[in-house]
C-alpha cells in the first residue's frame, strides 16, 4: 500500500509541467479576461470597476444576439452537411494500394492551405465578374452575386467551409473504417445484411469514437470561424455574414473596448463550453448504455 502511494506521487510530479504550461497559456490569460470584463479600461493605469454591467450590455445588444443566431445557424449547417458527406467519401475510398494513398494525399490538400488563402481563393473563384464559379453561374442564367445577395454570400461561405473541412471528417472516418475487422463484414454478408444494415450495425458503432472527435472539432472550429468570412465577405453584405468572432474583433481591436470585449469573450467561451460538454456527455451517456 505504502509503495503504491509513492508511485502515485511520482506520477503527479510528471503531470506538473503540463499543469504549469496550461496555467501559463490558458488559465492565467482567462483569469485576466475575467478581470477585464468587470472594468471600464480607459488606459493601462486608469480603470474603473463596473460590476457585471458589460455582461448586461452585451446580452442586450441586438447585434450580439443576431451574430449569435447566425453563428448557430452556420455551425448547424456545416455539421449537417460535412459529417454525412465525410462518411460517404470515406466509405467510397479504396482501403489499400496506390489509389488509397493518392486519394489520402489529395484529401489532405485543402487542410494544408492557410485559412486566409482559402478565403482569397474563394473570393476570386466566386466573383461574378472574373471568378470561374461566379461567371459560370451567371452564364447559366443564375444572377449570382455574393457581394450583394445575403443568400449567395451564405451559400458561398458554406461551400467554402465544406470544401475546406469535409476532408478532415473523411480522413477521420476513413481511419475509423479501416479498424473494422474483415470478419465483421463477412458475418454481415452471411446474415444477408443490406448495405444500409452493414453501415448502421457494423460500421457506425465502430465509427462512433472518431465521429465524436470530428463533430467536436468541426463544432468548435465553425463556432469560432473568423479568417475565411473576413477575407471572403468581410461580414457583408450589410452584417448578414458577421459572426461572433468578427464582431468581437471589431470591439476588441477596432474600437479597443476592452471591458465589453472581455465580457463578450467570456459569454462566447461559456457557450462553446456548454455545447461541447452537452454533446460529449450525451454521446458518452449512450456509450455507457450500450
Amino acid at each position: 500500500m505504502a509503495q503504491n502511494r509513492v508511485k502515485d506521487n511520482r506520477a503527479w510530479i510528471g503531470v506538473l509541467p503540463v499543469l504549469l504550461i496550461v496555467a501559463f497559456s490558458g488559465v492565467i490569460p482567462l483569469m485576466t479576461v475575467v478581470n477585464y470584463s468587470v472594468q471600464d479600461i480607459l488606459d493601462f493605469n486608469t480603470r474603473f470597476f463596473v460590476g457585471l454591467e458589460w455582461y448586461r450590455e452585451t446580452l442586450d445588444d441586438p447585434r450580439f444576439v443576431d451574430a449569435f443566431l447566425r453563428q448557430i445557424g452556420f455551425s448547424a449547417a456545416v455539421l449537417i452537411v460535412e459529417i454525412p458527406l465525410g462518411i460517404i467519401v470515406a466509405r467510397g475510398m479504396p482501403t489499400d494500394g496506390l489509389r488509397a494513398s493518392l486519394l489520402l494525399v489529395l484529401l489532405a490538400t485543402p487542410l494544408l492551405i492557410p485559412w486566409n488563402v482559402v478565403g482569397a481563393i474563394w473570393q476570386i473563384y466566386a466573383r461574378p465578374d472574373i471568378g470561374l464559379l461566379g461567371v459560370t453561374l451567371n452564364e447559366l442564367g443564375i444572377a449570382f452575386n455574393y457581394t450583394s445577395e445575403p443568400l449567395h454570400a451564405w451559400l458561398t461561405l458554406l461551400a467554402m467551409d465544406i470544401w475546406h473541412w469535409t476532408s478532415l471528417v473523411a480522413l477521420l472516418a476513413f481511419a475509423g473504417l479501416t479498424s473494422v475487422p474483415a470478419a465483421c463484414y463477412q458475418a454481415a454478408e452471411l446474415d444477408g445484411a443490406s448495405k444500409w444494415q452493414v453501415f448502421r450495425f457494423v460500421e457506425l458503432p465502430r465509427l462512433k469514437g472518431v465521429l465524436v472527435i470530428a463533430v467536436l472539432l468541426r463544432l468548435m472550429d465553425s463556432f469560432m470561424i473568423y479568417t475565411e468570412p473576413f477575407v471572403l465577405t468581410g461580414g457583408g453584405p450589410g452584417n448578414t455574414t458577421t459572426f461572433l468572432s468578427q464582431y468581437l474583433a471589431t470591439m476588441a481591436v477596432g474600437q479597443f473596448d476592452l471591458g465589453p470585449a472581455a465580457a463578450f469573450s467570456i459569454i462566447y467561451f461559456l457557450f462553446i463550453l456548454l455545447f461541447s460538454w452537452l454533446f460529449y456527455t450525451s454521446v458518452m451517456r449512450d456509450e455507457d448504455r450500450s
Partner: protein
Amino acid sequence: MNWMAWTAPTGLFFAVIASALLFLILLELKRPTAVAKGWLPMATTRGDRFFVSLLGAAFIHLFWLSLTDWPVLYASGLAMLWLVAVMAKG
C-alpha cells in the same frame, strides 16, 4: 501582477473557486469519489457535479442579466441553491 488588472471581487471569486478545488482534492484523498446516478440524466463523479454546478451557475447569471433588471445577487442566491442541489443529489 498589475497587467492582470485584479479587482477585489474577481480576486475573491477566484479564491473561492481555488479553495473549492483544493477542498475537493483533499476530500478525494480522504474519501475517493464513486460514480453515482442522481437526478441529473447521467451518472456523475463529485468532480463532474462540481463542473455542472459552476457551468449552471454561470448560465443562471447570464439568463438573469439578460431577462431581468433585478439585482444580480438574487441570481447568486439561485446559483447557490443550484450548487447545493447538484452537489448533494445530482
